[in-house]
């Protein structure tokens, strides 16, 4: 039988809700799982979660919009987050930023047309002694030079596919 994306999403959420407690404190863990699997939390997902937890969908939206690692709009398969805070800024993050924009052909805050990459700034990653630092999905990279930024992007391009989906786009 053909299962539509939304049906599958609904079933995922129901399964996860059974694993977690069906109370308000399960909201963020639920959202995190949706985010991880689907790269964003759609309006439909928010509605389903609101129904399960018996809260208003706007409550769910208010939480999604508050946290920078939860997204309402679809993001790329690889979310590159470059640290913009002081120590990384002093270590030369501007040049890495410029190189990333050149490599991807997008500006910060944008997603590539093919849906592979999103480029964002983030605040302190706790790698201040080894800046500039950036996250690619969950993975951290330190002392990134403009040249290394190119290599990292290339590796992401090569690992894109079902493998990347299964392993949350981990590149090694």
């Amino acid at each position, binding site marked *: 039988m053909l299962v539509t994306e939304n049906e599958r999403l609904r079933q995922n959420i129901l399964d996860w809700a059974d694993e977690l407690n069906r*109370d308000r404190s399960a909201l963020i863990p639920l959202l995190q799982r949706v985010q991880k699997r689907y790269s964003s939390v759609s309006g439909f997902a928010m509605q389903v979660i609101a129904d399960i937890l018996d809260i208003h969908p706007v409550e769910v939206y208010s939480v999604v919009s508050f946290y920078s690692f939860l997204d309402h709009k679809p993001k790329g398969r690889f979310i590159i987050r470059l640290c913009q805070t002081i120590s990384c*800024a002093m270590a030369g993050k501007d040049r890495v930023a410029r190189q990333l924009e050149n490599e991807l052909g997008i500006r910060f805050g944008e997603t590539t047309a093919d849906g592979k990459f999103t480029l964002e700034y983030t605040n302190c990653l706790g790698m201040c002694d080894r800046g500039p630092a950036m996250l690619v999905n969950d993975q951290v990279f330190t002392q990134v030079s403009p040249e290394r930024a190119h290599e990292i992007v290339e590796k992401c391009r090569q690992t894109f596919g079902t493998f990347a989906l299964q392993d949350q786009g981990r590149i090694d």
Partner: protein
Amino acid sequence: MKAMHQGDLTFSSIDPNAGLKRAIQMKRIDIIGEISRSKMRGRGGAGFPTGTKWNLAAAAVAPKKYIVCNADEGEPGTFKDRVILQEFADLVFAGMTIAGKAINALEGIVYLRAEYTYLLSHLEAVLDQRRKAGLLGSSIGGDESFSFDITIRMGSGAYICGEETALIESMEGFRGEPRNRPPYPVDTGFMKHPTVVNNVETFAWAACIIARGADWFNAVGTDKSTGYKLFSISGDVQRPGVYEFPMGIMVSDLLKEVGGSDAKAVQIGGASGHCVPASEFSRTCAFEDMSTGGSVIVFGPLRDMLDIAENFLEFFVEESCGQCTPCRIGNVKLLEGVRMLKEGTCSMTYLKELLSLGETMQLASKCGLGQSSPNAFLSIVRHFKPEIMGRVNL
């Protein structure tokens, strides 16, 4: 694993479970007594006496209590908790377990920031080992009345969730907006139950204190700031990294140690801390002088102080939860002011208004974020007037 820190840390020389083994034999009141006698104050930066916190939670009468480890390390320039979690997770979990016994809590929760997701599998593995070794779960160390287990909750990218009431809001499934205090978490915390929220490093030291005794700890440091402290050193220094120093260390001594003696200024305590000019390098990192969670960012002679103020204010504009007006609007106005200074279009009259706005924010903001966000701006304006006024952009 390659050591992530510089020099020797006390944590390496202590059996991570020595404290827990001793605590199993101790009465609850004696555990808290030992921590109180050590005069340890919270290692996250706010510096609340740990023994007092545990005592308040222990005294609360409730069917359920929680121990929460605040691993939402987001203060710019701070990374010692990451190193502790990577290298000394056992010590942190032992400290949480001791706290669990001390206040009679059965559950511990680590609130780990989303940026540290890559640490999760390591931490889960350590927790599993501890369960298998009988150091977590029911009847710990053969004591049937002593049960405690630890779970990990992930953050979702919000600096404000390092504030303890915002952290609790977040765990309960809400926006990370700080609550009014009182009531304090020791009384009304997670799910309205009494909750002890301590920093990662605080738990690690607590385990060391129980292992070696309060006298070992309070023999070091100053009278009001006892013990050792981990410092995260970054910026214009020869050897950045995590260091251990006694509390009360002078800024100039610290700089000598890390190779940053030519510094023009040092930011102590992260973005929410204070910017200290070279003329005041005789000040100390202690709760009675400059309270710090251990963040030290060093600025070399060529740095533009306005760039630094701008970076910090951009940070606060983004990370303010937006709940109260002084912080939400105030930081935006200060940032605009810094940009005016950079362009050379800020009059002294307006600068004075900004200083007064900063002081208002310190008084009128609801939580520590807003109260401390103007600190860096105020100290940079105070100490570097000749550098920041009357700029000409050609």
